[in-house]
């Protein structure tokens, strides 16, 4: 589904990704771990199409197409979803409007009719209930005045409504209390299916207690320095990132 080869990217004069390669197939859950500044968020932003990150080398292929030549909105309509580390507050635009606009943009792209208002509300309320969100949030400004946990739940709500083929969750677990973490994990697990792939970008192993990854990669200095199964995450938790860096260096 996603094939990243020798990807190099920089923001301004700072080179962040320095030859990153990663292959993600449908049905898989990948965890990308690494210390701060290793390039985790950059990878997420580059896949979503943020224009501040300049790609200076390598390639990204998504469903057989060159992903890098697509505008961010086309990537979204083609099934890519980025759950933001810092979801943006947009006062004055209500959540329901954004959800509906996003869904309809995707439907239009596929030649499908717009979503029925009744069906939309029903689905949204169901998804919100399972995430432990008050339905009132539908009519509030997007992330406006939301707590950290509410913002992350809102990202998962958007993901649940959009049903992406490739979801990238950037530090979705950061700043969550245990209840919110469980709700978010349940939302992600509900999305798991043989047709979909999920990339979890995380600093800590904690999230992986609730979402079992098929693969764990360690990112350091803009490259994946080690890959393994979920036992790698536990080892990292116990021994710290220096352990991998040293192990790789020797």
């Amino acid at each position: 589904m996603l094939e990243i080869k020798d990807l190099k990217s920089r923001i301004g004069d700072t080179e962040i990704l320095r030859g990153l390669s990663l292959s993600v197939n449908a049905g898989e859950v990948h965890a990308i771990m690494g210390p701060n500044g290793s390039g985790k968020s950059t990878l997420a932003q580059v896949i979503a199409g943020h224009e501040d990150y300049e790609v200076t080398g390598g390639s990204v292929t998504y469903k057989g197409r060159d992903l890098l030549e697509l505008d961010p909105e086309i990537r979204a309509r083609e099934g890519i979803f980025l759950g933001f580390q810092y979801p943006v507050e947009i006062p004055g635009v209500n959540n329901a409007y954004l959800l509906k606009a996003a869904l309809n943009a995707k439907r239009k792209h596929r030649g499908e009719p717009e979503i029925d208002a009744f069906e939309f509300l029903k689905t949204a309320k169901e998804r919100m209930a399972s995430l432990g969100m008050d339905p009132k949030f539908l009519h509030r400004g997007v992330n406006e005045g939301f707590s950290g946990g509410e913002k992350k739940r809102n990202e998962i709500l958007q993901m649940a409504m959009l049903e992406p083929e490739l979801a990238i969750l950037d530090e979705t677990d950061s700043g969550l209390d245990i209840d919110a973490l469980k709700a978010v994990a349940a939302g992600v697990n509900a999305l798991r299916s043989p047709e979909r792939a999920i990339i979890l970008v995380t600093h800590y192993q904690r999230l992986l207690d609730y979402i079992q990854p098929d693969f764990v990669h360690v990112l350091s200095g803009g490259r994946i320095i080690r890959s393994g199964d979920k036992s790698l995450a536990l080892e990292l938790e116990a021994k710290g990132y220096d352990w991998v860096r040293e192990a790789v260096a020797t």
Partner: protein
Amino acid sequence: MNQLDTAGIRSIVGRFPTTRDEDWKYTDLAPARDISLRWLDAGATPPAVAGDREVTALTSEIDAHWFVIANGTLTRRPDATGVTIGQLPATDRNDDALAELNAALLREGLRIQVSGTPDKPLGLLFIDTADSVAVSQARVELVLAAHSDVDLVEYHVSQGHAEHFANTELRIDIADHARLRHVRIQSRDRNHVQTAATAITLGRDSSLNMTGFDLGGRLIRNDLDIELAQKGAAAVFDGLYLAGDDQHIDNHTRVDHLVGPAVSRQEYRGILNGRCRCVWNGKVIVHEGADGTDGDQANHNLVLSEKAEIDTKPELEIYADDVKCSHGTTVGQLDETALFYLRSRGLDRRHATQVLTHAFAAGLVSRIPVAAAIQLAEKLVIARLADLIDDPVRNDVTA
């Protein structure tokens, strides 16, 4: 109207303020002068008055006691309890050339006195029709009796595509303990020029809550003068201006804090796209002895085009000791982070731009103090924004 003193009118037009006057530095009244002179040349005929059907279509948008002032003539008046309607005496004016012109050409001035709490908002529809070049004057005085509680909708529209210059004056006296909620909507044709002078005086423990919208017009100059004349008065007023190609919208406000404690708060927001110019000049004067003054003024602008120009200037003059005054102005572009967030959800750049500009405007729309006017204001703002953002020629954001 008596025999028109054409030479006298020409002389007044010749004395219109120019950009050499400090208060008119950024606004050139040349189009108003030009229209006036051409109208005089063409025989200064009174312009045609809007038809009943058009008027009814407009007034039916809001359930109100409507006064209709068509090209300066009162053509419809309501019959409402507590509302007394009279005529303003003719006066000679020499305070400035625009006031002089108003006095010289005014066909009838309207005086409205209100007591108690009318069952519906009062509506003032100023409708100007121009099938050929035209000039009109309107003057209204609204007097709110002590303890009255009034909703007011002021609606300026125009018809016909010929050039028109409307010069209007509105004077409002809010007596002690009275409350006025006021919505002002200016949705004129893009050929029209308007100078609108509004003067509001507030009595003891009285309040003004006002939201204004400037959506149309080619050249618009609003002068809003507010006098906090008695203790406990509070004036909260906001304005939104949306300007596109070939529009010039100038809002000059002046608040005189004569005594304290008293409160004034204003926030103006503007969205500019294309070759246009907007001006906001907010003057607050805290007079000697007006201790306990609490004043705040803000002006925020979203500038979507390199061809758009905004001149924003808060002015504060304080001659009292115990005063709390603040001001802030911003001029910015769309928030790129928010834009990317929306695009990452599948909205294209244009849609995302629309959503963000609408949200910026909605912040003021949500403050409309007259419930009956919310729907109309919202509808007009959305339509104007869609036009402002959607036109690919005008919009170099999506380029």
